[in-house]
């Protein structure tokens, strides 16, 4: 399996996961993740070349729904639960740095 996880990788992963870990958390997380990944090396001994990945616990296919409209949720009830809302919409801070 891969090399030992580095602090840089932990920082990169935390950014991907949108977690602003503290320095102390990053240190601890690096050590803990390294320990776990070390434990998970046990499966490296297995010959898995011809094994199909298992992604479904129960083999279903073609589960479909008719194209029939149902009522919307109540907008006020939904926006009432939002951290910030305005003019019938959800309000968020501006995007800085990267965007779509």
């Amino acid at each position, binding site marked *: *399996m*891969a090399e030992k*996880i580095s602090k840089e*990788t*932990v920082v990169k*992963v*935390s950014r*991907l*996961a*949108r*977690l*602003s*870990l503290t320095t102390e*958390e990053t240190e601890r*997380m690096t050590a*803990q*993740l390294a*320990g*776990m*990944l070390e*434990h*998970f090396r*046990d*499966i490296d001994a*297995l010959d*898995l070349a011809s*094994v*199909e*990945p*298992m*992604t*479904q*616990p*129960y083999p*279903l296919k073609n*589960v479909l*729904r008719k194209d029939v409209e149902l009522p919307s*949720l*109540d907008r006020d*009830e*939904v926006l009432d*639960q*939002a*951290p*910030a809302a305005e003019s019938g919409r*959800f309000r*968020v*801070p*501006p*995007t*800085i*740095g*990267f965007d779509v």
Partner: protein
Amino acid sequence: MQKLVDIVAGVTNGSLKASAVVEEHLARIVARESEIHAFNLVTADQARTDAAKVDEDVKAGKKVGALAGVPIALKDNMCTRGVETTCSSKILQGWKPPYDATVVTKLRAAGAVIMGKTNLDEFAMGSSTENSAFGPTKNPHDVSRVPGGSSGGSAAAVSAGFAAASLGSDTGGSIRQPAALCGVVGVKPTYGVVSRYGLVAFASSLDQIGPFTSDVRDAATLLEVISGHDPMDSTSIPQPAPSLVSVLDHGVAGMRIGRVTDLPEGCEPDVLARLEAAFDALRSAGAIIVDIKLPSIQYCLTAYYLIAPAEASSNLARYDGVRYGNRVDAADLNSMYAATREAGFGEEVKRRIMLGTYALSAGYYDAYYGKALKVRRLISDDFAHAYEKTDVILTPTSPSVAFKFGSKTDNPLAMYLCDVFTIPTNLAGHPAMSVPFGTGADSMPVGVQVLATTLGEQAMFKVAAELERSL
């Protein structure tokens, strides 16, 4: 404590008032909840109103449901319309869902009375409820010990008589392990038997809702009500709910019971002794004990702790402070995301999000997540071979009885090992249940786990009922 089936019978024939049943349970909550902390929220007023409605219906001669007047507690990761649903996380604290989970709809339709929302390890990640943002639940048998987890609140609620039954969710043992530690019955059905719609997802390909009850018959009764096809869940098996109560008295004569000869080590001797006693009891009842091997089971922790966190890292990405839940304000969007998630999630949740994000990320997918899916197949194949030789398999539920608070919190891997006997079933998608079977060290309850193959609930319940009778 009153059995679920007795409450239904009494309420339905008018000899028992649902309101009185609810008051009895509320009284026990008043007496002991401050000590136990099984609940995040007790919905006493609504429970009284619902019970009164059931009594009115009975009085008016209306037909009442299969759970008429039964006080039931819900793990706080099942959506209840207008009633706070937190997953024991700060990030969702205060959130009132605008919809009911399918199981909640079914319970209400059956006349059940919902008592409240029970405590859990945050987002169902843990084996002791110590990861709850709102403080741990105590084991009613010894409040210095954990109730197990993640559905610790639901297990404790039944054990303490706060509810006649409860629902939990089981991703790697989160129903069965706390059931064993609290001395109640806990069932994880076949993946797809109970709808996941409205269950806040932890690991979607592993999660399943199931009942906690004080005996096997109650569990069968409750499971019959909550199972069955749900068009809102694409992974729901399109079959009617299995008939379970009808098989409970069938006995086990001639049934093949699997003994795993390569069981992972590290189990307390008292627990293994109870397992032997269970085999003896079944043998005496006419069952045949068959030796089986599950060689890949030793890899189940690795497979599980890659697959479940990977799915969780994606499932928990939606807690971003935009549409619901709590936000930590910041000047720009990405700072808001990071501050919200940093403040909103507890340590174990963050650890699993990190692990899962890593396992899925570019360059690591094949080495971790991809491999884990293949190991999952090996484990499933092992079970398939075993079930050619046996009808059910018996193992311990938990390697130990309930442990003391704080004894495993510093070492995540030690905590993960609590699930070594329960995880394989989730990976395979099979049913399994824990049945109280005597006591072990310090007179704490011990559970024996009955495993069966896909949709093998009837065989599983026959054996569970026999074990219970033998006590």
